[in-house]
């Protein structure tokens, strides 16, 4: 029997996963404004036989309580445009764009993804998000986000309607190569998982360790089966960041050096943005200004209280809390070690049922992607766990999914 294959996605939005990554000597923060850069990283992902390149998206102006961070690299150019341009310089790699159902009509979505799907020869994927950041609403003429359950209700309607529109296009014009883009999802809450179970053909999620991965995948597979779909028709792709080295010690030292590029000011800006409250005027050596944060945050207050209370109780100063916060980016697994060890880890996760593959989140760009493609990909290929060529031309074929599954949303 063929051993379990590992699917690979490359999450390439922005300038890398670590807030300090843009300052790394092998980072090219100016590159995100040029086609040369996108052509180079797209070809690199294809050379590494990745299923797809994934771009996230934010529709809000980044900032914390009116303050724009000065130390964080934060351009978010339109993902559909960037990925479609990448389609023109590659032949196989899939292109997954994050687009919100809360701030697009089904007609806009159907038209954009339909065109992307056709001009890329069937390589489009849609990471369906409902938009969680309250600062998005004013960009669309509204004061507040709709409540989460309403956003998910709308998401179901929008996806169903967009699918109808694609069916109509498929009948009328030249065929859409995949019928419609591959439907991807990344929600975490019970609402989000339920939506994913009904809709998603692939799921991008955080899993900090192998147990978390197994739990998440089992939960999702059983939810998928419960709504009458085949769990083998869904790929679960947790995020994975890494810092590689010739030895484990070397990788750890490199990781420490990247984190050290961040000063207190960067850490506090990162924390400010994550807590939705400007903390840049506070003394890093002082206490965490809990009252101010809870008073001023634009994010759900209970969530924020949960994030800061333990540190407050321990008496951790603001700067130290911010530095620590930055070291644990969003619950994703960060691997430190040699390329061999990384390949071992990936195979272990796959064999244990913790995932179907990984969404690589390079710590900085493009150096982090180069290292992975040059050093880890050949090992996985040699061990028969990663393809050495693409099986077909569409993303659905690359993912090993059946041609067109009905959406039950």
């Amino acid at each position: 029997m063929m051993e379990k294959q590992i699917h690979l996605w490359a999450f390439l939005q922005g300038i890398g996963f670590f807030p300090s990554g843009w300052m790394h000597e092998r980072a090219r923060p100016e590159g995100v404004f040029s086609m040369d850069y996108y052509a180079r990283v797209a070809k690199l992902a294809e050379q590494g036989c990745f299923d797809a390149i994934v771009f996230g998206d934010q529709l809000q102006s980044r900032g914390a309580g009116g303050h724009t961070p000065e130390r964080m690299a934060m351009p978010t150019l339109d993902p559909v445009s960037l990925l479609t341009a990448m389609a023109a310089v590659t032949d196989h790699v899939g292109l997954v764009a994050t687009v919100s159902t809360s701030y697009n009509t089904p007609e806009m979505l159907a038209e954009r993804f339909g065109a992307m799907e056709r001009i890329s020869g069937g390589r489009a994927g849609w990471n369906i998000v409902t938009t969680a950041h309250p600062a998005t609403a004013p960009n669309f003429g509204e004061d507040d986000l709709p409540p989460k359950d309403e956003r998910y209700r709308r998401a179901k309607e929008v996806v169903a309607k967009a699918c109808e529109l694609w069916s109509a296009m498929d009948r009328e014009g030249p065929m859409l190569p995949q019928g419609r883009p591959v439907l991807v999802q990344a929600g975490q809450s019970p609402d989000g998982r339920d939506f994913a179970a009904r809709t998603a053909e692939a799921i991008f999620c955080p899993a900090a360790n192998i147990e978390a991965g197994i739990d998440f995948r089992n939960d999702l597979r059983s939810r998928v089966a419960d709504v009458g779909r085949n769990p083998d028709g869904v790929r679960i792709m947790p995020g994975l960041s890494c810092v590689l080295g010739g030895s484990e010690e070397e990788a750890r030292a490199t990781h420490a050096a990247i984190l050290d590029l961040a000063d207190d000011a960067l850490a506090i800006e990162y924390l400010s943005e994550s807590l939705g409250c400007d903390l840049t005027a506070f003394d890093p050596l002082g206490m965490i200004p809990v009252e101010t944060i809870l008073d001023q945050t634009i994010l759900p207050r209970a969530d924020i209280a949960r994030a800061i209370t333990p540190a407050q109780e321990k008496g951790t100063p603001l700067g130290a809390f911010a530095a620590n916060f930055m070291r644990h980016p969003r619950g994703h697994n960060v691997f430190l070690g040699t390329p061999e060890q990384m390949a071992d880890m990936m195979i272990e996760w796959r064999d244990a049922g913790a995932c179907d593959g990984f969404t690589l989140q390079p710590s900085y760009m493009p150096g982090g992607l180069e290292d992975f493609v040059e050093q880890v990909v050949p090992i996985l290929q040699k061990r028969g766990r990663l393809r050495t060529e693409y099986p077909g031309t569409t993303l659905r074929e690359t993912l090993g999914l059946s041609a067109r599954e009905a959406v039950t949303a």
Partner: protein
Amino acid sequence: MTRPFILSASIAEATFAVPETAAPILRAAEAAGLDLLVMGRSGTRPFDAQVLLAWAAPMTSRLGLVATVPASNAHPFHVARALSAIDFLSAGRTGWSVIPEGAEDGMAEDMVGAARALWDGWGSDTLILDKASGRYLDAAKVHASNYEGPFFKVAGPVNAMRPPLGHPLLVVDGDDPIAISDADLALIGEHGAAPAATKRLLKVSPEADVASLLARFEAGEIDGLHFTLTDAAAQLPEIGARFASLVKDRANEAGDLRRRLGLPIPQTASNQPGGAVIPENA
């Protein structure tokens, strides 16, 4: 600088949305010396011109890429971001043509106002990108536009440098005009309306008489020509053969589209006269 003779064409063939057809058409358009290719609305969907523009950006090196944007099926926040990204990817070769198709009166104009306000959100020198000091940008140069029009209300800004062109070129079509007094280019018919614009391109067929059109250009009556393609694969080589002599002296001209076509960066677009500045890193 001598005044450039501008050649433009529009395409709305459904097969342009398929790579096998689109790639040779783009090559033929560049070979014919076209300055602008306007991607219009196809009767057959999907034909999202902004998406096709993004795909065309790395496929071309000189051609100006213009997206038709229907005001009724778009939002300025999305449009401003998409065109800004494409302007970077094409190194300053984008434009847009907002059409009122299906929209209420005033909506297309409101779309223009809102997108322009968003493009002005970051000054041209906002980025610092200094690894040594750790400063990525100058927050003092980031502005929320808080645009409020009859249809669109957009806080802004978008998280990106303003486009290299300041604003992508605004093209208005005399057959489908919108009430904008400061468009960059107007496509005008022999007898139809002639909307206010910095440059005027006369709509003609590929068979039109070259010498008399050149005389009208020299008299300052028009700034160039626009062809509405109905069979691009056949017409582009014909246009190249008949009209390329008018643009021959500019065939290897470098620089962004505003510079090449003699169109200034709009007054509001910048706190600096040049294009957006993307600092180089060591």
